[in-house]
């Protein structure tokens, strides 16, 4: 297997080649759970559309237009290969949030009733909570929580304790964005299916960082975002087992997704995935997402995972030597490191890191509910990707050590 060399890899990324600075210091980007940098290949694909291939998709009879259709079809095939799905099971959306809204609306509100239950956890991102609350509102079904274990992790045993015949949907992240534990989704799915429930997996934090095989995991739906996997913003994917996609109602309606309709209101929708792709798509986004996916596959997802793991271990070891650091997820397996500095507000610490050219995210991380659980109103999160180096970690660790007074950021 190929070993990741982040120094070589950085040459592929304009944000590094252009030597982008922050606060007059070389940028150290540790906010990869929020969004990721894009390789030149992505920019090139986007520009190909903007400069040489501009046309709308499935709407015309000329070559330029046909070419767009072919490219979109190829992108769908690439994404399918990436997660071991079939091409027709890949729906393009504007991102994870839309993917989940689509299922919540098109499946949840259609099939659930007031006697049913949706199970989520306290660790879910707002985008994997609020749409289900809405299903609750619209159908009267209950939203209940699978308890996390003492580390804040979802473990299959805890699902077994709460699942019942009433459970119709289990909506959980493969990797959560605050604590970064990798969930045993395969086991979750097995249990769910025993009870006739479906698993809607939020892959926003997992798909970019590790191999994903939807057939092996046997998840029913999977969502992820392009921008978190070195692709463009405004584009993402909803994977669904084909039979379930057929059963799912469209979320948005409009041009391109209907076969025909008449004045009486009878509408025939196209088959999935077209059924869900109303209106003009984010075409350059699709081009860019394909390029991003090709890029990740060329590195190898297993290699990426292994390298991130190595980097995390290196960071945790060093951080543990700093007594002022409170680590919230030492045992997590992903590149997400959540911490606070004793006596310093998370936002203030992030501001201090910013003054040192280091990008971390503080705050409630969207998973606002979880913070009741952590007992902290806010934390700081550093999140890694394959282009981060040990030097990045060193700079980060030493900034945390030196940062005597966070207010220095104001006066330095």
């Amino acid at each position, binding site marked *: 297997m190929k070993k990741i060399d982040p120094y070589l890899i950085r040459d592929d990324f304009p944000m590094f080649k252009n030597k982008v600075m922050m606060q007059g210091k070389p940028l150290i980007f540790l906010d990869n759970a929020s969004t990721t940098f894009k390789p030149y290949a992505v920019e090139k694909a986007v520009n190909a559309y903007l400069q040489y291939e501009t046309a709308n998709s499935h709407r015309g009879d000329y070559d330029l237009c046909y070419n767009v259709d*072919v490219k979109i079809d190829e992108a769908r095939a690439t994404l399918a290969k990436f997660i071991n799905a079939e091409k027709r099971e890949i729906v393009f959306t504007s991102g994870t949030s839309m993917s989940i809204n689509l299922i919540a609306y098109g499946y949840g509100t259609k099939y659930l009733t007031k006697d049913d239950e949706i199970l989520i956890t306290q660790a879910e991102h707002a985008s994997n909570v609020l749409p289900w609350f809405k299903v609750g509102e619209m159908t009267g079904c209950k939203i209940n929580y699978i308890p996390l274990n003492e580390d804040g992790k979802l473990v299959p045993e805890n699902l077994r304790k709460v699942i019942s015949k009433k459970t119709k949907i289990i909506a959980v992240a493969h990797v959560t964005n605050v604590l970064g534990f990798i969930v045993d989704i395969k086991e979750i799915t097995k249990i769910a299916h025993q009870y006739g429930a479906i698993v809607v997996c939020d892959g926003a934090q997992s798909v970019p960082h590790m191999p994903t095989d939807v057939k092996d995991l046997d998840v029913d739906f999977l969502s992820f975002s392009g921008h978190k996997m070195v692709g463009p913003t405004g584009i993402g994917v909803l994977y669904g087992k084909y039979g379930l996609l057929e059963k799912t109602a469209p979320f948005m309606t409009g041009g391109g997704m209907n076969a025909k309709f008449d004045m009486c209101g009878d509408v025939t929708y196209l088959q999935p995935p077209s059924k869900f792709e109303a209106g003009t798509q984010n075409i350059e986004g699709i081009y860019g997402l394909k390029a991003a996916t090709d890029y990740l596959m060329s590195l190898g997802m297993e290699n990426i995972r292994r390298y991130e793991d190595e980097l995390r271990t290196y960071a945790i070891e060093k951080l543990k030597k700093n007594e002022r650091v409170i680590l919230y997820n030492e045992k997590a397996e992903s590149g997400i490191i959540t911490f606070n500095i004793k006596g310093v507000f998370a936002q203030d610490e992030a501001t201090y890191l910013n003054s040192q050219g280091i990008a971390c995210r503080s705050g409630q991380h969207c998973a606002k509910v979880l913070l009741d659980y952590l007992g902290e109103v806010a934390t700081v999160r550093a999140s890694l990707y394959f282009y981060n180096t040990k030097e990045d970690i060193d700079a980060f660790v030493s900034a945390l050590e030196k940062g005597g007074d966070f207010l220095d950021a104001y006066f330095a």
Partner: protein
Amino acid sequence: MPISLDPQMMRAIIMDHYEKPRNKRTPHDDRYQMMHIDSPNCIDDINVFLLEENGVISDCAFDGIACTISTASTDIMTELVIGKNVQDALYIIEQYQKMIHEQPFDDTVLDEAIVFINTHRQAARIKCATIGWDALKELLDHDHKHEK
């Protein structure tokens, strides 16, 4: 491999099938299987009918709204498959699809259908030139599965 056809001839064949299709009709007979197919890109919106008896295609027809290319190509197809057994029909369809997609194909079974050999030049019309063929293939595949 592809023989060089005279454009005048090709055009005449297409227009002939378009203006006087041989099998454009809706059989009102329960023994027929039907497949509806349409395209969001073209006006095409047709039903393809298949009557299979003892593994032989005893009748094949289509009806609906269709452009020149889809009318002619589907009509030529019906003529080609009527009287053939399922295996042979599937073989013909396969060769036709190979031709359309510029792959090596067996031109001995395509007869008039060869006029669509240049469809790739107008790639946006590939769907029109194959829509009836796709429908028939699905009908036959479906049938085949049931037999097993």
